[in-house]
């Protein structure tokens, strides 16, 4: 779960006592607010009540007489005659010092200090997942966990490595989606029989590499380390590591930067063992074979 507080929600009120915006102005205002990360509700004359808690900023053309709205965390802003950019600034002011994620984060690296991140994480298709826990065993970053009912769940989405869909490649049931991936079926598109066969083949490729892709990684890292000791050249060792990892990156579609950022072989072994133990415990609790 992401710790970033909920951003304020904006309600454009056009019911009784407010003058509706022109359609083009309404569209521009929505786009401007959405692209800054705010959810917006158009509440017209027949709208269901849009307030569901949290911080609400009610905006509308009230002709200088904004309505009184009950609620401790609700503010009202008259936007009569104001541009979309100007309204966005007012909403920003109403937010104050509260942190929020920003769509601009998609163009920048994840920043733990400010909680900005690109929402890239696996999404499980409950209709396909068989709770085999293979993904839980595979992921070294504690993205996956187990629910109290011993079913797989995405526990720490922010731990996922942006643009890495590797766990979806090892899923034998094509049950793991990354909605922001560029192609199907990983993006959530339809799954064909050929996709299922292809995914199984990818698991087999992993097996050909040594049965455990991380075991192979450890071997290659150890080789690189030994060579580094002999040659005492950090540059050569780094080049070797990069060359060795290329095959792994291609086999499982793991971005190079993710492999480069992996911890030491010892730490990889510890995490892999821990993840495998959790997966085995979940399978045992669910009465499934190890």
């Amino acid at each position: 779960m992401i710790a970033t507080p909920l951003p304020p929600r904006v309600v454009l009120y056009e019911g009784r006592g407010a003058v509706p915006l022109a359609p083009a102005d309404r569209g521009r205002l929505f786009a401007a607010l959405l692209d800054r990360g705010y959810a917006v509700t158009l509440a017209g004359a027949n709208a269901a009540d849009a307030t569901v808690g949290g911080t609400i900023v009610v905006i509308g053309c009230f002709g200088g007489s904004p309505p009184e709205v009950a609620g401790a965390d609700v503010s009202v802003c008259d936007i009569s005659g104001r541009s979309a950019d100007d309204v966005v600034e007012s909403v920003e002011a109403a937010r104050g010092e509260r942190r929020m994620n920003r769509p601009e984060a998609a163009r920048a690296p994840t920043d733990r200090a400010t909680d900005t991140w690109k929402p890239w994480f696996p999404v499980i298709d409950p209709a396909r997942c068989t709770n085999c826990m293979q993904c839980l065993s595979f992921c070294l970053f504690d993205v996956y966990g187990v629910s109290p009912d011993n079913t797989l769940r995405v526990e720490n989405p922010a731990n996922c490595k942006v643009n890495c869909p590797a766990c979806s490649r090892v899923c034998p049931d094509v049950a793991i989606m990354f909605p922001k991936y560029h192609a199907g079926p990983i993006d959530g598109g339809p799954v064909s029989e050929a996709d299922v066969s292809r995914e199984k083949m990818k698991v087999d490729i992993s097996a050909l590499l040594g049965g455990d892709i991380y075991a192979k990684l450890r071997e290659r890292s150890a080789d690189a380390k030994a060579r580094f000791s002999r040659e005492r050249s950090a540059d050569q060792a780094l080049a070797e590591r990069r060359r060795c990892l290329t095959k792994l990156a291609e086999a499982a579609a793991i971005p190079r930067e993710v492999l480069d950022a992996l911890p030491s072989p010892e730490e990889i072994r510890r995490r892999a063992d821990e993840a495998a133990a959790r997966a085995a415990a979940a399978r045992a609790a669910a009465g499934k074979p190890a």
Partner: protein
Amino acid sequence: MSDSSDASPRILYCRCAYAQVVPADVKDAVLAGLAAAGTSFEAVPDLCEMAARRDPHLAELARAAGGLTIAACWPRAVRGLFALADAPLPEQGVTILNMRTDAADTVLAGLGAPLGKAVSER
């Protein structure tokens, strides 16, 4: 604040603001059409981001009386996102329109809204 409650399907539009996987011309035209229709709707910057936060608003939407029509991406992904947020969508009463693959007029027809002028046009 509301004048009355009704049981017509609620409309949810996802901007997919954190990625470029939904064609910009489609999502702009759909937003413009919704804005031109003038009927109530909800727009969110990014369903993925909300699901990761397990935003309680998703549960409120999933329980919407009268049903829910969602303009976003692949239905399988949208259902998975709501499930991830502990707000599974009911099997009945939910329509998911795919802006990744469908044309704007197709999506707007599904929403019951007219084709509007793209909001990026000034």
